[in-house]
């Protein structure tokens, strides 16, 4: 554990800058000194997996890892964690690749309401990494730092015990700590650095050096090919007109040109009651007649972040153009709690709408997708019906498998 750097006196009404690594990503926040780590994670970084119960160190709901050891996030001020490495329950596993502890909690039904689960997962992770030989009889005492009011602890102990027995040689590390950019929201009045940074970015000529994409697996990968009626020349015209291009994307709006191929914009997505509004910047890296590459990052007002790399390729196909869009999208915060498959469906549908808008724009017409999110309802229904179709396909597949298995099953007693 490295020591934090010295920090000059900061008065009670001022904010303190702190830089720490959270789930593999370095993040800098400017906070009043009295903000606890649990509040910083939840309110500033949108990582609401860390729960808060008593907020004075008794219940263990807010247990997280600091430099690999479990600690109470409510008993630490965020400003103390300068240079520290934090892992929260969001860093432990991914929805499609759970940590063994999460698998085991699910299997043993080691939760009912789920409020204590992040605390138990992080506490038991700490226990099994530091004491892999822990005996079953010692588990109740060793896990006594977290309270549960639903399960009676039996299933939790069983879940941890099974993982302990399966991983005596070493527990797998946190599975979701690839570098992500945590673009937290800054509540009104609680630190102004994000706002200052935004203001700076809005000045033409002022933009970051580059948009650094997180390492590791993207949250969503989009790979969509659409057939356009427009000619390659017409498509090239749109590729070279970023303002027009932005209008092809439903809900998107280009608000500023910052120079040097940097742009500032806004994107709104409405899915039923869900409203997301991203403010962000985009950097066009490659702008050819048949190919456009850009990186974008934005933050949602609700406390989520998105980063993406998008590559669009136009290939002549028949009389028109085959437009291929590839995107790697990284989501953090609240929006990442959407199922990956639903988020992926929505993203794909947006690219299809985008291709249609582009076809119209290339032909010289108004893209007709506008700054409002008109496609939202259609996007959701489209996404849902895609999923319904997939599910129907899966069901049919499963029933076929069933029949096949039925054919092979041993004869029952009656048949014998």
């Amino acid at each position, binding site marked *: 554990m490295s020591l*934090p750097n010295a*920090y000059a006196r*900061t008065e009670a009404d001022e904010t303190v800058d702190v830089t720490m690594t959270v789930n593999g990503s370095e993040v800098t926040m400017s906070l009043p*000194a009295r903000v606890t780590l649990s509040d910083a994670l939840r309110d500033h970084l949108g990582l609401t997996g860390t729960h808060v119960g008593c*907020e004075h160190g008794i219940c263990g709901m807010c247990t997280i890892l600091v430099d690999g050891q479990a600690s109470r996030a409510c*008993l630490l*001020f965020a400003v103390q964690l300068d240079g520290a490495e934090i892992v929260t329950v969001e860093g432990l596993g991914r929805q499609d690749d759970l940590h063994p502890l999460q698998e085991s909690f699910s299997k043993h039904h080691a939760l009912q309401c789920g409020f204590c689960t992040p605390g138990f997962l992080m*506490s038991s992770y700490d226990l099994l990494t530091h004491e892999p030989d822990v005996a079953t009889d010692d588990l109740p005492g060793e896990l*006594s730092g*977290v309270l549960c009011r639903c399960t009676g602890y039996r299933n939790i102990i069983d879940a941890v015990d099974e993982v302990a027995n399966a991983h005596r040689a070493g527990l797998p590390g946190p599975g979701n700590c690839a570098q992500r950019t945590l673009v937290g929201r800054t509540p009104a009045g609680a630190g102004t650095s994000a706002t200052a940074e935004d203001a700076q970015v809005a000045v033409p000529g002022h933009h970051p050096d580059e948009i650094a994409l997180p390492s590791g697996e993207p949250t969503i990968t989009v790979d969509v090919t659409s057939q356009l009626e427009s000619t390659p020349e017409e498509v090239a015209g749109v590729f070279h007109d970023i303002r027009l291009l932005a209008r092809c994307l439903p809900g998107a709006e280009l608000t500023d040109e910052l120079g040097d191929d940097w742009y500032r914009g806004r994107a709104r997505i409405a899915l039923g009651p869900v409203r997301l509004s991203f403010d962000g910047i985009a950097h066009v890296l490659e702008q050819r007649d048949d190919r456009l590459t850009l990186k974008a990052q934005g933050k949602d007002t609700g406390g989520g972040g998105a980063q993406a790399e998008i590559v669009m390729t136009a290939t002549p196909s028949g009389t028109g153009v085959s437009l291929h869009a590839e995107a790697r999208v990284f989501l953090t915060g609240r929006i990442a709690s959407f199922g990956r498959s639903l988020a992926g469906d929505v993203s794909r549908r947006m690219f299809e709408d985008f291709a249609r808008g582009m076809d119209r724009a290339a032909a010289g017409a108004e893209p007709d997708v506008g700054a409002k999110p008109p496609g939202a309802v259609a996007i959701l229904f489209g996404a849902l019906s895609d999923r319904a179709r997939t599910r129907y396909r899966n069901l049919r597949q499963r029933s076929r498998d069933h029949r096949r298995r039925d054919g092979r099953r041993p004869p029952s007693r009656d048949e014998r």
Partner: protein
Amino acid sequence: MKPAPFAYVRPGTTEDVLAELGRDGAKVLAGGQSLVPVLAMRLGRPSTLVDINAVPELNRMSRTDGHLRVGATVRQRQVQYDDAAAAVPLLRLALPWVGHREIRSRGTVCGSIAHADPSAELPAVASCLDATMVVTSAGGAREISASEFFTGAMSTAVVPEELLTEVRFPVAADGEGFGFGEIARRHGDFALAGVAVRVRTTTAGPEARISCFGISDHPVTRDVSPQLRAALDATGAEPDGSGLGRALRDHAVAIADDVVDTGGDAHASAAYRRQLVAGLVSRHVARAYLKSVRPNREGESS
């Protein structure tokens, strides 16, 4: 955020820490595991928190001159697992009882002693071993023995401008055995009663010293050598643990009557605490004695 606003400073040297502590209303923040709950409940509203975690010399632990020296920001969990700390077996026996792993990963040994909660384990360990507290102010350092250090509930001989920079625990000698036990409603909760024991057996016979906690406003230390010798006279030279424990029982009841002076609370009356102390003292003095005469026998005293 529940605490009231405070100014924050994280000096890089002990001198700068002491300069900050000279301000009115300044409070030291080490591990924060006792302080932050107090702030969260707004039982305390210091104007400035002086975070001492950036001072390298306060983060040291070493063994010199027959002492284990534990610096102000050394974590309890580090002491629990560090080989150097094995030289003070009583610390090793007591640390698993301090809060939970999650607390010990941040909480400091010195912080627990400086906080001086009457039901805390480490002040009793310091008292039983008569550890030396090194307290530093702008004017220099002074050493305070445990018997002078704990003055009352959450009260010590340290004045606001001073910093507890180091605690020196005497390293165990040959012929010493230790015992530690406590009763709490849940593991990690405040102890209703507890005892730390050191027995030193030499050719001159056994000496026993106990520090009880949770039963008064500060750890209460007693020399119980006469009681141990009397019990050994009753059992013969080679007692087993339970036989010696039974022989100590009547003495332990008298000791409990003497040391327990808390008025009792919702969790346990004074009479119940006396029962707990009597049981704990007889059991753990017996175990500590057996370890002092059979050092190779690794009996856990807990």
